[in-house]
Structure formats: structure tokens, C-alpha cells
């Protein structure tokens, strides 16, 4: 082994060790009490057999559809990685311009390949009364979404190819951090990009939200409602923004009377929990931990195609990126579950209302058809929240730790 190679391997080992240390520190910065043991939850007592069967049946199709869609994605991109460079003859735009064309065509092919699976999902959700979007509107939305994706991939390729022309194979050293900065910028402005929102008008809920925010050490956080009832009846909420742009977004399907005020309060407290525990900022840190080595892998993988300065490398880079995302998926959903569990705990601590928590999680199964106990493989690959069983178990554990007086 040459000295240079040995030094390279040592640097790689050092970087890997640093990655693990940072990842562990980051992981340990969010947690529920270490002593917490989730008690067993008797699903049969909470749900009827019919409700469980419905949720199982609904989610099984969605999962199979996702699997097939991912297989199609990988297959199509593998072929495109091999043959996509041929489309360079359709360009008169020089190296970078041709790279943009190949990047956009790659996304376009992926969109076409996934279209049947997306269609199947819309059909399935309509069939079960979860989705209400018309096929035409869904298709138009997909087309507009693809336009946005084209713009994004163009911006990303301009950065990567520009850096690769200047820095050669070391573009990732600058490119990775640049994408982290861009992700931070996007997180900051995301609240302004959400369409169809209006301020929450429920005064009681607003007062509760203000109280919860104070209790969780937050300044006054804006609560907005997003109108989604035309597309779906599924309930949801999210915390978005950074610093002064932070806000909680409640889907209007959460406020249509199916959830009690106590249950909605719990959801608000959960989202405030995300903000008080800086989950969006930590999410960016995790993104940096994935993006920088990911950029390095792409730079290494595309060396045989002349590096990222050459348009011929773009189809291969797309394929490598998707493979990396798939490989990182179990870890990513585990991180997300970790955040969600902490937010659940924060919500219980703030509202001190385990009954409301049990009620809202239970309705996620009866209303949104979320399977309370998904199969292990689905849990590992797809579950970005704890299972309903785990979430109800946490509410039960909180009650055990804080028994009602008397």
C-alpha cells in the first residue's frame, strides 16, 4: 500500500469517526426520559377488529405501491445512468447547459415512470375516502411540481458543475456546505411558500397556544391554518420556519369537528415541542451530516465520466443520489421518529393530558387509516413517526409517571 493511499484511508477513517461522534451527539440532544419504558398497549381494547382490518388493508396497498414505485425509479435511473448521456446530442448549450438538459430529462423520466404509481395512490385514497383530489387536478399539480423540480435541479447543477469546473474533483468540499446553506435558506422562507393559509381565528386555542409556547420557553409563535380539505380529509399539522419565521401550520381537516378542542390543543403543543427543541435546526445539522459525505460519494462515483464538470456525469450522479437516499432512508426515518417521540413527550408534559393524546392518536387510525402496528420492514423503511401503538404507549407511560391526584 502506498503512503498516499494509506494517508487517504486514514483521513477517511478519521472523517468517518468524526461523523459518528457528531451523529451521536446530535442524536443524544433529543430524547425522551431515558428511564421511560413503554407499557404494552392492548390494541384490541382500543380498536374494533374492523377498524384494524381497514387500516391494515389501506396501508398495505400504499406500501406495495411505494415499493413498486421505488423499484421503477431505480430501474429507470439505472438505464438513464447508462444511456442518458446520449441526449447530449439534443443540446447546443455547451457543457453546463447540456448538464441542465440531462438533469431535467432525468427528472422527467422519473416523473413518467412514477406516474402510474402516483395515479394508483390517488385512486386508492379516493376509494377509501381519504383523498378528494380529481385526477386532472392531481396531474396538473404534478406537472407544476415537476416544473419546480426542474428549476431546483437546474440551480443545483449550475452550482455543482460550476464548482467542479473550478475545483475539479474537490467540488464537494464547497458544494456540500453550499447546499446546507441553501437548505437553511429554504427552511427559513418555507412558511412564506405555503399556499392557502390564513391565521387561526379560534381565540381559545390561540390563548392555549400562547400559554404552551411560554411554558416551552418560546416567544409568541404564529399559528396558521392551511386549507387542504379539497384534496384530502387526512388530518395533519407541521412546524415550519427558523428563528423569526417559525410557525405552526394546522391543516383545516384537523379543525372540522372530528377532533375535540383538547385533542387539537395537544397537536399544537406537539408542534410547539418541535420548535422548542429546535428540531428544524437539528434537522439541518443532520442534513449537513448526510449532504457532505453524499456529495463526496457522488464526486467519487462520477470520476470515470470526467467528473461533475462534464454533462455525461449528470445521469450517473442522479442515479447515485437516489441510491444514497434509499440507503440512508432507514436512518433518516429513525431520526424523524426520534424527533417525533420527543415532541410527543413535550406535548404530554405541556398539556398534562394523556387522555387527549390517546384520543388523537386513536383517531389517526380510525380517521386517517394509519395502521397502529405496521410490519417491521415498513417500520424500518417508512415510519417517520412512532407507531400509533408506541404513541399511545407513551401517553400511558406518562400517566403512570404522573398519576392523577387522589
Amino acid at each position, binding site marked *: 500500500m502506498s503512503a498516499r493511499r494509506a494517508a487517504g484511508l486514514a483521513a477517511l477513517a478519521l472523517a468517518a469517526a468524526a461523523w459518528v461522534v457528531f451523529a451521536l451527539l446530535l442524536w443524544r440532544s433529543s430524547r425522551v426520559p431515558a428511564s421511560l419504558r413503554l407499557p404494552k398497549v392492548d390494541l384490541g381494547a382500543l380498536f374494533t377488529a374492523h377498524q384494524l382490518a381497514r387500516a391494515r388493508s389501506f396501508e398495505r396497498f400504499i406500501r406495495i405501491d411505494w415499493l413498486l414505485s421505488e423499484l421503477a425509479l431505480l430501474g429507470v435511473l439505472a438505464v438513464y445512468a447508462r444511456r442518458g448521456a446520449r441526449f447530449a446530442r*439534443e443540446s447546443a448549450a455547451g457543457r453546463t*447547459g*447540456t448538464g441542465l438538459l440531462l438533469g*431535467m430529462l432525468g427528472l422527467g423520466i422519473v416523473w413518467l415512470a412514477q406516474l402510474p404509481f402516483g395515479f394508483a395512490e390517488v385512486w386508492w385514497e379516493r376509494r377509501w375516502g381519504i383523498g378528494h383530489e*380529481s385526477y*386532472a387536478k392531481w396531474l396538473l399539480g404534478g406537472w407544476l411540481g415537476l416544473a419546480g423540480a426542474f428549476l431546483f435541479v437546474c440551480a443545483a447543477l449550475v452550482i455543482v458543475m460550476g464548482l467542479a469546473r473550478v475545483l475539479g474533483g474537490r467540488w464537494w468540499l464547497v458544494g456540500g456546505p453550499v447546499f446546507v446553506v441553501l437548505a437553511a435558506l429554504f427552511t427559513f422562507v418555507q412558511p412564506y411558500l405555503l399556499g392557502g393559509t390564513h391565521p387561526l381565528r379560534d381565540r381559545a386555542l390561540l390563548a392555549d397556544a400562547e400559554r404552551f409556547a411560554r411554558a416551552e420557553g418560546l416567544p409568541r409563535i404564529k399559528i396558521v391554518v392551511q386549507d387542504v380539505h379539497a384534496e384530502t380529509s387526512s388530518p395533519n399539522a407541521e412546524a415550519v420556519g427558523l428563528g423569526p419565521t417559525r410557525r405552526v401550520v394546522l391543516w383545516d381537516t384537523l379543525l372540522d369537528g372530528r377532533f375535540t378542542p383538547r385533542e387539537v390543543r395537544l397537536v399544537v403543543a406537539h408542534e410547539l415541542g418541535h420548535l422548542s427543541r429546535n428540531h428544524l435546526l437539528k434537522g439541518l445539522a443532520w442534513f449537513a451530516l448526510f449532504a457532505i459525505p453524499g456529495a463526496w460519494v457522488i464526486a467519487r462515483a462520477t470520476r470515470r465520466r470526467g467528473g461533475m464538470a462534464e454533462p455525461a456525469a449528470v445521469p450517473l450522479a442522479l442515479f447515485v443520489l437516489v441510491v444514497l437516499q434509499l440507503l440512508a432512508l432507514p436512518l433518516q426515518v429513525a431520526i424523524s421518529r426520534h424527533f417525533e417521540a420527543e415532541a410527543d413527550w413535550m406535548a404530554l408534559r405541556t398539556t398534562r393530558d394523556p387522555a387527549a393524546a390517546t384520543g388523537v392518536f386513536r383517531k389517526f387510525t380510525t380517521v386517517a387509516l394509519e395502521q397502529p402496528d405496521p410490519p417491521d420492514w415498513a417500520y424500518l423503511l417508512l415510519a417517520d413517526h412512532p407507531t400509533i401503538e408506541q404513541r399511545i404507549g407513551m401517553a400511558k407511560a406518562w400517566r403512570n409517571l404522573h398519576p392523577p391526584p387522589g
Partner: protein
Amino acid sequence: MDEHPVRVTVTDDLQRNRWTVFFRLILAIPHFIWLALWGIAAFVAAFVNWLVTLVDGRSPEPLFDFLAAYIRYATHVYAYVLLAANPYPGFTGEPGYPVDVELGRPERQNRWKTGFRIVLAIPAIAVTGALVDGAPYSWNAQANGGGGNMSFRTAGTGVAVTVAFLAWFAILARGRMPRGFRDLVAFCLRYAAQTYAYVFVLTERYPDADPALPEAVEPAPPSPVRLTLEDDPRRSRLTVFFRLLLAIPHVVWLALWSIAAFFALIGMWVATVIAARPPDGLHGFLSSYLRYAIHVYAFVFLIGGPFPAFNGAPGTYPVDLELPGPEPQGRWGAFFRLVLAIPAFAVAGALGGVLFVSAVLAWFFSLVTAREPVGLQRLGAFALRYTAQTDAYAFLLTSRYPYSGPATRVADEQLALAE
């Protein structure tokens, strides 16, 4: 390629009588009434002709002659109304009018093509609409809960009608029809006559959209702003399917460039009015901008195949724009340039409808055959050439007014490919 059996001949001398031009629409009323009555009979005759041709494989001579006379008469009337000819036309469709139609004799026709004639004719009817009456290029889309609901409405004025409107003023002022206008209307009428003949099952030859084909139309006078078309009509289906979305980075870049071009144009205008000559730097900048815009339009409207470069450099795209260098210009002409350009903008707007319709049709055709229809490509290139000449005039890149006559310089290779 064989000559099209439906030809328009132009023997008009461009001279016009101001009085008959002033009252042209009123004078044409008897012809409108007679044309409508004859049209009813022609519709019935065309249906019978379709049935007979479907069975026999050939149009019966009496029906052919009757329908050919109707097409000839309609062309005479439209040429008169649209100011492409001066004399009051006869009511029988007799040959010999200054803008006339020549039709061959009945020929054997394929029964399949005859059977589906009206469906096959839809693209030609759409192009005819854009050329003569108005382009259906405005969409109204709305969605409701139960499903998508799209309506389609006609908007915009056809090229021939727009040109005739402008020509009316020009003739009243000068007593003469501008040659470019006359030739453009003649081209529109030629295409319409070929569409009628196709729909009436007089020929199975599809209407030819290539504007450079009419034999009677003289070559265009030399212009310092020229569009060169050296594109291979073969197309990648994938880049055709995603054409609009692929153009997004160019649209963004063009929009940014347009902001700079706007201020450059103001500077150019002030400098040219003062110095009677555009400054070299601004002229070069606006030339690059216009060339880039034409590259992008060519890509979006499927006239060009490849993805264009972002710099507007000459020689980088198969649909390219040749522009003159800075040259002395009259101060008054420069001062009133935008006002003077209004008629050209009106014609360019009408040709925009043609560009849109031809692009939509070419999109479907290219997706199926992986080839751009050469006629539509050249029609689009013609519309683009006129747009480029208009913009170059408005941007003070040249003092030459745009020429609306249909003639496009086509590279020899392109012609070879087409054949």
C-alpha cells in the same frame, strides 16, 4: 416533392382604388350573401362527393367542378375583402381573377384517407383559422371537485384579417397595397384553398404550410435581419414531450436578461436620437439578447430541436438570427420608433397565434413520428423571422421596416432532408 394540385396564382399589380377600398366591406355584401348560399349547396355537394369517393375512389367530375368553382369563388371574394386584389370579383368563380386558384383534375384517392378525412383535416383547419380568421390560442382552465373542466375559446385575430385592417389605412394613404401584405394574404388564401379542397375531398394531398412555396410570390427583398433554418427535423420524443418544462431555465434567464435589455433599450434610444447612430456596445448587447430570445422561442415552439445555449452567440443554434452591425439612422425615425413599430407589432401578434397553433400541432406530430413536420417548421420559422425583424426594428438594431411577405431562407441541407 410534386407540386400541390391546388395552387394560388397572383397577377395583381398592387394598385388600388382608394374609393373602392374605403367602401370595401359594404361593396362585398352581395358577395357575402351569395357565398353563404353557395356554401350551403357546397356543404351538401361535399358530403355527396365524400360518399361517392369513398365508394368509387374518385370524385365525379360534375361535383368536382362545382366544388372547385366554389373554392375559386371564395378565394376571389376573400382576396377582394382582404385587399389582396383590386377588381370587383364575378359571381361565378370563373378563372382569371388577379388572385386565383388552380385545381387539377379528379384523381384516385385512398379510401381510408377519404373515410377519416374530416378527422385528418382538423390540424389544417386549425392552421387555417390562425391564418385567416383567428387563432384559438386562449385557454380557460378550471377544476371542480368532481373532475377537471377545461373550456376552449377563440381569441386573437387571424393574420389575414389583421393585415387587411392595417392595409386599409396604408392603401388610403398611398393608393397602393404594400407588397409584403399582399403576399402574406395570398399565402393565407392559398393555404385556406388547399384546406377547403382537402375537406371537400377534391384532393387527398394535405395542405402545405410552407410559406415559401407559392410560385407567384416573388422572393423577399433583401433584409439585414435574416433567420437561418438549418435544423434537422428529426426530434427526440422525450425532449418534445417535456419541451415547455425544459424551457423553464431559459425563460427565467430570458426574464432576467429582459430587465437589463429594457434599460439598455432606453440608453440605445437616447443615444441614437442624439448621435443618429446606435452605440456599438449597446447594439451588441441588444443583438445578443434578441438572438438569444429567438433561440429560446425556436426551442419552445419546436422550430428548433436542440436545447439552446444561454449566451445568444451567433452560430450556436440551428435556427439562428443574422443581424446587421450598427449603422446610421434617421433621428426622427429613431425618435418615433416605437410608434412606427405598432403595425408591425400587430402583425407579429397575429403571427404569434400561428406560431402557437403550429407548435401545438407539431408537438403531437413529433411525439408520434419523432419528426417535426417540415411545413409547420417553416411556417413557424417565417412567423419567428417576422417577429425578429419587428423586434430588431423596435430595438433600433436596424432602420429597415419588417417585411411581412412569406419567404424564408432555407439551407440546402434542410431541403434535402425534407425531400
